[in-house]
């Protein structure tokens, strides 16, 4: 008797944890969205997916936060598989664990969103990736800086680089592509300091860059995201320097980033479409379950070489088009 009460309590607790938003219908699809963590961007992405599900209707969707723990991602996938769900949408913590995720998913359809597994050969008609091509995000920054300095007639450019968390694929690609595009634009680039690894965090970036601002020569500040770019802006204001005196560039077009472009403190940023990614991921899952093209019902298109990758485009944001991106 005691035992069964305990079992019931466990069931009740897990029902709460894996609680569902919509009442169940017989032909519902059941899905779990597993987020690596919940920062501003990823929360918006999550909402993009759940909103799209609500709009389509007939989809039971629950979301989990793995708190940046790759092991938790796997646990959530296994739980969804055990519950007999139809699909999982996974925002990977560790890009190397893609194969393990697919294995854990068993018969479920798998959509990776925002963070691509490093081994793309695991993608197939039941496993797709929806995200934005990070090589283009840094590329937009690089092109902007190349144009900026070419217009000034300056070819030797010293830069300070604020990097996100090392080991994440998008950190590497953002950094690689911005530097490559600056070189391709005819600039002779040199690093003014060792790369600062500020883990995508505003306060960390502000602290790390502060000692360099008045002691090093630099022509521009490149940040892998807006939060770190804004940290650099604050550090410059702290040091009584004008952030508009040199170009500071970010990526993400967060609400704060947009505001900074309007204020003139940030030179440009790159809009990554979180709602589009969330919606695209959900549509890909539904389309797979219904045996349709992955991109049906969206304006996105698949990669030219790998048909199992769906690209949600990046868009550069400057002072002259910033109004389009205000929320």
């Amino acid at each position, binding site marked *: 008797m005691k035992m069964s009460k305990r079992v019931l309590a466990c069931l009740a607790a897990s029902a709460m944890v894996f609680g569902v938003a919509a009442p169940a219908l017989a032909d519902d699809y059941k899905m779990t969205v597993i987020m690596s963590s919940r920062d*501003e961007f990823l929360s918006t992405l999550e909402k993009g997916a759940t909103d799209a599900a609500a709009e389509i209707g007939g989809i039971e969707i629950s979301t989990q936060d793995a708190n940046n723990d790759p092991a938790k991602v796997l646990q959530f996938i296994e739980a969804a598989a055990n519950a007999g769900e139809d699909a999982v949408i996974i925002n990977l913590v560790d890009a190397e664990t893609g194969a393990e995720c697919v294995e854990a998913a068993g018969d479920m359809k798998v959509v990776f969103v925002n963070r691509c597994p490093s081994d793309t050969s695991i993608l197939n008609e039941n496993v797709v990736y929806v995200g934005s091509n990070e090589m283009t995000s840094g590329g937009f920054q690089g092109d902007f800086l190349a144009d900026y300095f070419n217009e000034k007639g300056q070819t030797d450019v010293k830069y300070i680089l604020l990097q996100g968390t090392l080991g994440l694929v998008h950190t590497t690609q953002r950094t690689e592509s911005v530097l490559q595009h600056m070189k391709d634009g005819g600039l002779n680039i040199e690093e003014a300091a*060792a790369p600062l690894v500020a883990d995508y965090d*505003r*306060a960390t970036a502000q602290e790390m860059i502060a000692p360099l601002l008045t*002691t090093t020569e630099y022509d521009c500040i490149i940040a892998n995201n807006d939060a770190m770019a*804004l940290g650099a802006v604050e550090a410059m204001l702290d040091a009584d320097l004008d952030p508009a005196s040199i170009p500071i560039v970010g990526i993400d077009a967060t609400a704060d980033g947009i505001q900074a472009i309007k204020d003139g403190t940030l030179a440009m940023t790159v809009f990554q479409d979180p709602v589009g990614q969330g919606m695209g991921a959900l549509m890909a899952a539904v389309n797979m379950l219904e045996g349709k093209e992955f991109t049906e019902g969206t304006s996105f298109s698949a990669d030219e070489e790998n048909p199992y990758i769906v690209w949600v485009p990046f868009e550069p944001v400057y002072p002259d088009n910033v109004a389009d991106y205000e*929320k």
Partner: protein
Amino acid sequence: MGGNSKDIKGFVSRNSIWLILIILILAVGVIQPKFLSVGNMVTLISGEAVRGIMAFGVMFAILSKGIDLTIGSTAALVAVITASFAQEADYANRYFEGGKPLPAILVILIGLAIGVVIGAIYGAIIAYTKIPAFIATLGGQLICRAGAKMYSDSPISKLTESYRFLGHAKIGPVPVIIIVFFLMFAISAFLLTQTRFGKNVFAIGGNDQAARVAGINVERTTVLVYVWCSFCAALGAILLTGKTGSATPASTGLNYELDAIAAATVGGTSHTGGICRASGVLAGILILGVINNGLVMLKVDDNMTNIVKGLIIVGSVILDMRKNAKRV
């Protein structure tokens, strides 16, 4: 004469931490003279001020043979709540749509009060249930961080200048945050050495049974220790959001408790209780500051910086334990 040289030896031994600090500063300064500029020293101290104030809090907990792991999360919770009341009225992405910012002084008092209440809660849990402080504050850490994330899922920014005054403004060439930092140093040193509360904490850390026999209210003192600790965390949160201009639920104050504990430890606060000097902790903070700031200027790779930090933390405790063992 003999006594005199013994005095000098004792003085040097007690203040060896300052010697290490001076050597570090000179070493970095020789390689990169710009490190020693007044401007950079201001940058260094204002960079460490938040964690420093948290260290002034946690040193009381460590002194009483406890620990406080909630600091960073308490800071996050206080940061998001206070920031939400201090956003500019005309900002489009306000937390409270269409509202007006509250007067800064009120917001700051709310923030400090939240800190005090949080500290009182887990202080009471530690004092009256006798569960280890490590466990109680670990629970507190998870709850406060989750609370911050539930309160807001995105950064809260565009804060009023009056709210940002403590963290951001300057009086002449001196950032207010530095003034607050040294003020908090003075207050904690005073609390530690000149008040009954401080003496009681020393007594509890030395031997809580003896302290109880001596008539000290161990429970009440323990609650006050964590109230102070949490108050420092809340003040740190207000400075941090002022400095960065934004409160981010997931990352504000993340792991700051570890930095604060490290600074207090490097500064000679003994984890076996009963030993602590405010001046030592100040030196500990500045040593970590020299590493954080100086190694960036020397273009040292980030991972190397953390290795040096780790070695210094462990090394300083080994030195301290040997020194204290000799004294006994």
